[in-house]
């Protein structure tokens, strides 16, 4: 009854064991294999029951590194010593020679659990080759992604080219597990691709020896022109002469080259290489370089643009400072010269007048000569004053007030009331739009223009001055028109330059500074001045000045 019951149980157990998806191997207390289930036989690649009665040592697993493990460390052997082995992983050679990755557990089997009478051991194992491969690939992808992320981050932060090279070669060498990694950058001067420091695995002093001629790069162009990196290997039986040449010139066994392209132009190459032939590049290495290259090229290009932009802006700043300094010096020079000229002039004039006073009965001829001295002193004095005003206009920053142009124009005319009366002038001033500017400076503009009109009037006709103004798109255009002697338009630009005069003092008195000062003031206001004239018919001066903005007018009213 008991036997029957037992054998009944055994049959049930057998069914369970056979239908189990994992391999199951049972050994007796000395390690003789007494059963391997169907899944187990298939996994081991054996015909059913082939190795029954053989010793378990027949199946000798290896560690994951490929080393054989000692016989006493085989899981079933350990289980026979009463140990429990859970989820250990080994490499196992199947009957056909293929190696699989297995996960194995083993447990001792006792006749009665209580008495410790060990009658054998059982091992459960399954093929995890594919699973582990996938996991390894995933881990590799993760490492690659992490590496790429690091490269992207580091190159984005680096501003200077060598810093980018450094980040790239070190991280790539680590990712590709290679012992040489370097960037060859194109030199447009001699059409060479030259290795740049810092490079991984190349001494800084030896770096100049690593050079690729454009010619050579062109020869391998067919491959370089595709996005795929060029993989060179000494052991490749079909390696071309050129490829072998490249490898030998670097003293390496294999190499992988990928182009760096920016704005449709090859600016360089990334090269990774191995000096010994037990390391070869894999498909994932190729993929990795392919991913990194555009990013690296972009980082390098950005850095170059950044450096260029900084250089340009630094140059512009230097130039602006230089110009400002020259301008300041010029104004300071004008000021100090004209200032220092006043003292001797004062002395000449003062002593001449003292002389005149102390000699009451001087001859007419001598008196005339003394008068000429005084007249010339006065002329020089007004020249100096004009120069001073001119230099002041250069250093003075115009105020930005809303100017009642009509009122200032009337003030300016008022200054010349006597002169205008003397030449029976007819002056028409239309309503003028307000402008934005410096009242004191603008009055100088108007007085100069009016004084010009008076001085260059034609003697045979009464002077007529018409002053009008219009406003268009943010600017006010003022026109001061006269019927005077005018000038030849060929000399238009000359009249606005310092000390350029079109007339002698016989025709009209002038310093040669008035219109230059007018132009300087107008331009300091952000405006323009120009003239239209016909010789003998008259001249019109056009002054364009900024109009007050909407906001300023509102402010003024509020």
């Amino acid at each position, binding site marked *: 009854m008991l036997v029957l019951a037992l054998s009944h149980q055994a049959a049930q157990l057998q069914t369970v064991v056979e239908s189990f998806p994992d391999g199951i191997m049972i050994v007796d207390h000395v390690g003789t294999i007494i059963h391997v289930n169907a899944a187990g036989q298939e996994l081991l690649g054996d015909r059913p029951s082939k190795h029954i009665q053989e010793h378990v040592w027949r199946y000798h697993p290896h560690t994951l590194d490929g080393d054989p493990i000692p016989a006493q460390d085989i899981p079933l052997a350990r289980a026979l010593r009463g140990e429990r082995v859970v989820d250990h992983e080994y490499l196992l050679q199947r009957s056909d020679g293929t190696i699989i990755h297995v996960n194995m557990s083993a447990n001792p089997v006792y006749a009665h659990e209580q008495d410790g009478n060990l009658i054998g051991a059982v091992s459960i194992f399954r093929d995890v080759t594919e699973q582990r491969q996938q996991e390894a690939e995933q881990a590799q992808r993760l490492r690659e992604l992490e590496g790429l992320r690091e490269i992207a981050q580091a190159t984005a932060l680096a501003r200077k080219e060598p810093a980018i090279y450094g980040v790239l070669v070190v991280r790539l060498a680590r990712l590709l597990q290679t012992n040489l990694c370097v960037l060859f950058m194109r030199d447009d001067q001699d059409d060479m691709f030259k290795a740049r420091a810092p490079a991984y695995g190349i001494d800084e002093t030896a770096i100049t020896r690593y050079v690729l001629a454009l010619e050579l790069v062109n020869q391998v162009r067919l491959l370089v022109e595709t996005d795929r990196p060029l993989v060179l290997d000494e052991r490749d039986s079909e390696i071309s002469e050129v490829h072998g040449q490249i490898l030998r010139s670097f003293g390496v066994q294999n190499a992988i080259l990928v182009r760096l392209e920016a704005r449709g132009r090859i600016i360089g190459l990334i090269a990774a290489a191995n000096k010994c032939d037990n390391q070869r590049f894999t498909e994932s290495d190729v993929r990795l370089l392919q991913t990194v290259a555009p990013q690296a090229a972009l980082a390098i290009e950005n850095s170059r643009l950044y450096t260029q932009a900084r250089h340009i802006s630094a140059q512009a700043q230097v130039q602006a400072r230089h110009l400002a300094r020259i301008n300041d010096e010029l104004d300071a020079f004008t*000021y100090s010269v*004209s*200032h220092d000229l*006043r*003292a*001797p*002039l*004062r*002395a000449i*004039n*003062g*002593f*001449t*007048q*003292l002389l005149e006073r102390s000699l009451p009965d001087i001859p007419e001829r001598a008196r005339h000569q003394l008068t000429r001295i005084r007249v010339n*002193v*006065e002329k020089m*004095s007004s020249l100096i004053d004009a120069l*001073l005003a001119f230099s*002041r206009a250069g250093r003075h920053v115009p105020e930005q007030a809303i100017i009642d142009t009509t009122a200032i124009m009337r003030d300016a005319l008022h200054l010349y009331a006597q002169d205008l009366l003397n030449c029976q002038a007819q002056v028409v001033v239309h309503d003028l739009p307000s402008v934005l500017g410096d009242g004191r400076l603008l009055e100088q503009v108007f007085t100069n223009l009016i004084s010009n009109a008076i001085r260059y009037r034609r003697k045979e006709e009464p002077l007529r001055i018409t002053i009008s103004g219009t406003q268009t798109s943010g600017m006010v255009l003022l026109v001061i028109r006269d019927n005077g002697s005018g000038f030849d338009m060929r000399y238009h630009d000359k009249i606005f330059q310092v000390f350029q005069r079109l007339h002698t003092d016989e025709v009209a008195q002038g310093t040669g500074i008035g219109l230059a000062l007018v132009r300087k003031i107008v331009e300091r206001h952000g405006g323009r001045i120009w003239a239209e004239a016909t010789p003998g018919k008259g001249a019109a001066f056009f002054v364009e000045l900024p109009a007050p903005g909407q906001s300023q007018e509102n402010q003024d009213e509020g």
Partner: protein
Amino acid sequence: MRGDSALPLAIVLVEDNPDDEELTLAALEEYRLRNPVVVLRDGQEAIDYLFRQGAYAQRSAEQPHLILLDLKLPKVDGLEVLRMIKADPLLRRIPVVVLTSSREEADVITGYDLGANSYIVKPIDFEQLMTTVRTIGSYWLIVNEQPPV
């Protein structure tokens, strides 16, 4: 004309340009201002005189009643002299008329706001100079009530 003159209402002229000095004195003479004029030729001499130190340590305690001060001076700048005068509790009561060579310099004076009582731009025309001297003279020495020294 000596600074230690017993006459009151002395004028101090601080001027380094001998021509300007001669012309100013001539203009004062023309106006027949009998006031003694002490001429000092640089900023340091002006300070020594006014503060009775150095070469002027022994001079009488009598202080001038008007100072005509040029701005561009050797050794110590006219502005510095002006600043020192106005920082001294006694000297600050003496009217100071600043003589400038140009309107530009006049701007400097107003900008510094050092308390000059007046400033004039040295006119080139001698007649104008005389008028100016006359105006200053009559204004500060006659019309203005002198502060107690």
